[in-house]
């Protein structure tokens, strides 16, 4: 039953990806400016410019350019960067590991700490603990990443000198960026966990469990948590796509390479093939994340897969 659900859900990704590729292509090409101005230098002639426009097919109708791009894409060819002068696939492959490490660790950190904090805040009887956790959640959801990044550097790298200021060499260069990105994530996950747990606790079956004399701990781990995890999994799944490209400002401040940084640089130079390649990767990651989330929910809750069948 579940396998069938996964299959049909995955099949849906094909038309969605194609429509996304059209949207990405149009947005990128309709932006004012073009890559050739970022490629030519003083000393080259107006004829050189015209020759480059022809060379990269930018004089052809957008429809033709789109089908050339998507056609190559189907054969696994991401194309050649115009300004960055390298195969797009190489550029993505060089930046992806940095994004995956940073995003993956931040994701794990924010999920684990967030769920724990959310649970503590929902179950504690101490108002002080609850106040502190709620304060943390509020701070985490509102503090801008770049500002937090600079504060982290000033305190942990400049004052205490525990970690390097910037760079991407060695595990110690990961600590501050992971904490910076994770901070916001922790707040979000904790908030969702807390609300979900509080909602679940008001359900009738919980009152019944209490009446049957089940210990509070057993109710929490055995009944409340599985129930409350549904919205948490949804939120986490949506953040999978964000792992890849959500760290642009943090990458910038800490001087780390990454898919987000590559995208921003290419966007500034209107390097169409790179921008398209990066955006498509990010879109795919988001779609995969949503798929994983849906499948996980379906696995956890039979009602969902029955309803969607």
């Amino acid at each position, binding site marked *: 039953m579940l396998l069938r659900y996964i299959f049909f859900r995955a099949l849906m990704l094909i038309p969605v990806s194609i429509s996304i590729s059209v949207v990405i292509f149009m947005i990128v090409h309709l*932006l*004012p*400016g*073009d890559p050739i*101005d*970022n*490629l*030519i*230098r*003083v*000393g*080259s*002639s*107006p004829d*050189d410019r015209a020759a*480059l426009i022809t060379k990269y097919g930018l004089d052809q109708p957008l429809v033709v350019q789109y089908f050339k791009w998507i056609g190559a894409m189907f054969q696994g060819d991401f194309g050649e*960067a115009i*300004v*960055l*002068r*390298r*195969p797009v696939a*190489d*550029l993505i492959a*060089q*930046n992806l590991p*940095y994004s995956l490490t940073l995003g993956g660790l931040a994701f794990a950190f924010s999920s684990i700490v967030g769920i724990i904090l959310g649970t503590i805040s929902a179950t504690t009887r101490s108002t002080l603990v609850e106040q502190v956790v709620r304060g943390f959640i509020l701070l985490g959801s509102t503090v801008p990443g770049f500002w937090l990044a*600079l504060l982290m*550097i*000033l305190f942990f*790298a*400049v004052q205490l*000198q525990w970690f*390097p*200021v*910037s*760079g*991407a*060499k060695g595990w110690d260069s990961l600590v501050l960026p992971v904490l910076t990105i994770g901070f916001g994530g922790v707040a979000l996950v904790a908030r969702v966990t807390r609300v979900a747990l509080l909602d679940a606790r008001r359900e009738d079956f919980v009152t019944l469990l209490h009446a049957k004399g089940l210990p509070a701990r057993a109710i929490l781990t055995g009944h409340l948590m599985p129930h409350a995890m549904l919205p948490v999994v949804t939120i986490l799944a949506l953040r999978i796509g964000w792992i890849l490209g959500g760290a642009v400002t943090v990458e*910038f*401040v*800490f*001087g*780390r*390479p*990454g898919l987000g*940084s*590559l995208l921003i*640089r290419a966007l*500034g*130079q*209107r390097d169409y093939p790179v921008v398209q390649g990066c955006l498509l990767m990010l879109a795919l990651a988001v779609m995969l994340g949503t798929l994983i989330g849906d499948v996980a929910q379906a696995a956890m809750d039979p009602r969902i897969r029955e309803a969607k069948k």
Partner: protein
Amino acid sequence: MRFATKTKLLSGTALITLGFLSTAALAQEASIAFASGELGATSYNPVTSSNLNSATSLIYDRLVEQDADQSYHPHLATSWEEAADGMSWTFKLKDGVTFHDGTAFNAQSVADWIPDFAETENAYLVGAVASVEVIDDLTVKFVMSRPEPNLLYNLASSFMGVPGAAAYDSMGEDFGVTGAVGTGPFKLESFSIGLETVLVRNDDYAWASDLSENQGAAHLERVTFREIPDQSTAFLELKTGGIDVLLGVPTDFLQILKAESNVTVIQMPGTGINYMPINVTAAPFDDIKVREATGLAINQEAIVASIYNGVGAPAHNFLIASLPEAEVDPSLNVSHDLDRANALLEDAGWVMGDDGVRIKDGAPLSVKLFTQNGTEFTSLTQVVQAQLADIGMQAEITVFDSSTIRDEYKNNRHQLAVRGYDWNNSDILDWFFSGERLGYPNVSMWKDEEGQRLNDVAMKDSKNSAERIANFKAYHEYVLSQHLFVPIYQPTTNIAYNSERVNVPDPVRGTRFRSQTVLDMTVVE
């Protein structure tokens, strides 16, 4: 208690180890952060890249070097001779030079290399070279399809660092990415795109140009170039010893850096101008009197003093002061003169209104002032706006990103703009004022018969360097007489270094921070 002691002991050991390591590191290493303008290079292939950074100059040597006074110095070429008709150049090459892979550098290396440029984006650099002939092992002749008095300038560019032909052919697409072979004082050890480039000393090096004091192998054994996009982070790295040298420090950072006891700042003459192009097709600037008045409103000296704390120099024409073509008829230089500006506007029919804004035919003298995002131009544009108000011109500032602003120019939606260029050659005049590039780069939208004639003469008819200088000077003077822009400021190129860690020679020779400086750098004992 026990734990506390243990921790102390541990951290004590760590400190000793650290101290030990750092003395070892002090031996002969330096790390340098690139200037923000040279970030994002994806390859060290000088032939095909569109973007090269300063590390490139350490891997490859050039035939010719250029000094800060724009004079040319021998490097891999010991001497050169230009035919009287400009149709050929003969270069004598240095003996005993070898590439990093052990192969010899000779006339054949040059003959193999030049044709590689064909069909690349950099082909224009050797566009006038018809063929390269090997005369003998150490003599090579460039046969020209037209005279190119600017050939030496191109040869001194980073894009014309000489790669090893054997490696260039065998590595293909990977040349400059996974490995690189040149004759330079450093070899490429590793290159992580967007992160860092590690270079190790070429121990055999004995062919430096006369721009370096050190004629042998570099004092430094290892140089790490790092990419740090955020200026604040780069500054903190310099302060804490994470990097030793920071290239391209923005002028507004200088005061903060100078306050640090371990930081020394070197100011090199810059290679560019900040200026305000005027769109001659957009009213009221189709009236030359309004254009001239706009130029007279700008107080370059006050701008240098107030925004840049006296660092850098005022610009009074379109070229950097070290270029001979910048020495124009003094009456054509643009300087502050409010009385004359106001008189010109009165003459053009713009009368002062009660609110301090001039009016003509019921319409106020209100204009659009465009600029690019980024801190570089923010305060400059605001001061320009204030100075324009002094002649009764109301300017409204709009900020764009660098690609969008070009689109605005091309669609002729602009009037005034504050921008800058970085180029130490007079052909920048052709770039920004050629009638064939209206919109962008010709932001002034200027198309003029006499201007195009002078441009053609300067670009195509100059037979030798002296003729080229005279022709470009004439073109420059004509451009100035048409009031197409307002020159504002000549920035300096600023380098900051940790003086407790390294010594950097001051003044820095050459037009940019390159191999000649790194060869002379030493580690503080």
